[in-house]
């Protein structure tokens, strides 16, 4: 004997809960990431791109970022350390050195990420390395090691 079960009309419904979960996670991710990028980096910089370089992926150690903001024809506009800008002259370099020395006092094993445009002339990049070396001395921290991380792009 066959049994006939009467079912009502099937209701097609989308379960929105997982989608909302994922969308919220994405929003939280983008909010966090975009803040960090804006604070640290300058968008105008085109980093040197190297094919199969001997570089490594940056670790989780504490570091600050110095951006060398490019000008026209290999010149420089200014330097940016963290969220602060410094002029590309002697006074600016001195002020940046003092700022770095303060950071070394807080953390003697601090690393400095150096981001410079591929076309920027070396004469504008080298003062940043000098500033880092001088800041380590100026901080009077016996265990301060002046360390620069040169930032590049890996091209595959």
């Amino acid at each position, binding site marked *: 004997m066959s049994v006939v079960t009467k079912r009502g009309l099937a209701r097609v419904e989308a379960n929105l809960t997982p989608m909302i979960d994922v*969308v919220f996670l994405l929003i939280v991710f983008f909010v966090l990431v975009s803040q960090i990028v804006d604070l640290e980096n300058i968008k105008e910089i085109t980093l*040197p791109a190297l094919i199969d370089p*001997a570089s490594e992926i940056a670790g989780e150690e504490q570091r600050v970022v110095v951006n060398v903001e490019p000008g026209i024809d290999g010149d420089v506009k200014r330097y940016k350390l963290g969220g602060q800008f410094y002029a590309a002259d002697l006074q600016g370099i001195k002020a940046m050195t003092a700022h770095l020395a303060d950071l070394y006092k807080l953390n003697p094993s601090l690393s400095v990420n150096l981001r410079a445009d591929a*076309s920027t002339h070396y004469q504008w990049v080298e003062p940043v390395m000098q500033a880092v070396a001088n800041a380590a001395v100026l901080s009077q921290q016996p265990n301060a090691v002046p360390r620069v*991380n040169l930032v590049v792009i890996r091209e595959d």
Partner: protein
Amino acid sequence: MPDGKINPFDGAFQLRAEDEIIAHTRIGQRRGRENARISLNLVAMIDVVFLLLIYFLTVTDFKLGEEIYRMDLPQRQPSAQLADPFELDEDPLRIFIDSAGRDFDQYVISLSGPYESPATFEDLYDFLHQQQISEVTTGGFFAANHPIIVQPERSVRWEHAIEAFNAAAKARYTNVTFSKPR
């Protein structure tokens, strides 16, 4: 009443009927309450959330493939200078880079000492790799910790300076630094 007479039971009947209607209505309301579903109207929220998502997707810039070279700068503290007063300084290998071309997009590499100048950074890497003292190569001059100083000219592009550094780092030299521009 059609004949105009008053029926004494008529009002009672009407009352009874009204009571029944009220009673039915109450039961209906009770059933309705039992079946009521509390639901949130999510449409507006989803609209806003998607707008936010699209905004962040378009605004955000990613640092694609950024990597670093770790470089310890020479220490100028007195403790570093007095590490071993009898130790002889090794004569560093200097890599000179000069800019060439109208837009400084060309480069010329030369080396300190009696070595042939490499034409490209690949040649520089080959030279440094061959001259390293190791079990694989024979006849090398430099240990892995031999000091190598990259010394670019003032107008050399940063990408060329870093390529010279990369050649030394790729050849597994551990003591590579930059110097003041020439």
